[in-house]
């Protein structure tokens, strides 16, 4: 029987993967958003703003990795 368990450490890892996926999809979305009629922004500006916000969250996740205590590892 497979008794594999997961905890906060794996959660943090997969959360960071989620943000990586977001970054991967952003360039395509930035162009599509810029193509919308009611959006005046350029794709570069959209990408830049979104990247800054995600960068902030990546820094937070780095702090979580640095300071979290994963004392109940398998």
């Amino acid at each position: 029987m497979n008794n594999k368990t997961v905890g906060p450490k794996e959660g943090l890892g997969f959360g960071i993967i989620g943000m990586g996926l977001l970054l991967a999809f952003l360039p395509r979305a930035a162009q599509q958003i810029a193509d919308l009629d009611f959006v005046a922004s350029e794709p570069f500006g959209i990408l830049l703003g979104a990247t800054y916000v995600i960068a902030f969250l990546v820094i937070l996740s780095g702090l979580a990795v640095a300071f979290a205590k994963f004392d109940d590892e398998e």
Partner: protein
Amino acid sequence: MSTEAKAAPRKRSKRLPLTYVIAIVPVAAALNIVGGYINGVLKLPIFLDMIGTMVTAVVLGPWWGALVGAITNIVSSFISGPIGLPFAVVNVAGALVWGYAHSMGWMRKNWSFFLVNILVATVCSIFAVPIYVFIFGGATGHFSDVMTAAFLAMGQNLIVSVFSSNILVSLADKIISGYVGLAIIEALPTNLTETTKLPKSEGLNKIIIPVVGVVVGAAIILIFLALQ
């Protein structure tokens, strides 16, 4: 058993079977996507795309909730268009606040649970407003655009107008999401929720408390709409 073992009771492990995570994460993301889709179709003055995020952040932890938030907005950008993708950071931020507030024990009492939902709404608005203003110019086609227009007509500037409309919608949305999430967590198997630190309720209160929370959330938005 030795005296030492008796004196120090074994700490409950935060680790969960992988199968639970594999089951909860996609279902929570699907719940968010369906909620957001229903909201879009019915043009409701809320979002309904963070119920699964709340459940995951509380039951599994903040970063699992963040993963659900990211998956939700990536997948819904393929279904409802690219507008939702930049707002993934709002979903991720909401998951982190719910998750860390829960792990710090801030959600044990009914009043503190309510306050945490208000905190989540405020943090989500802080992340959402720059996206609304600088990427979309203040409008995304959501119902809250009507409120933004009303605030603009009162003479407020764009950032204040977007923040005012967004915080009202976000307050109602996060209170509703929080209490619907609480009802879902109450219904999950006990072995999955034994480490949660949520308001304890018995019998009929298990239903009454979430219903009252949802009614309060709905009342906030209805009162504001009536006053406009």
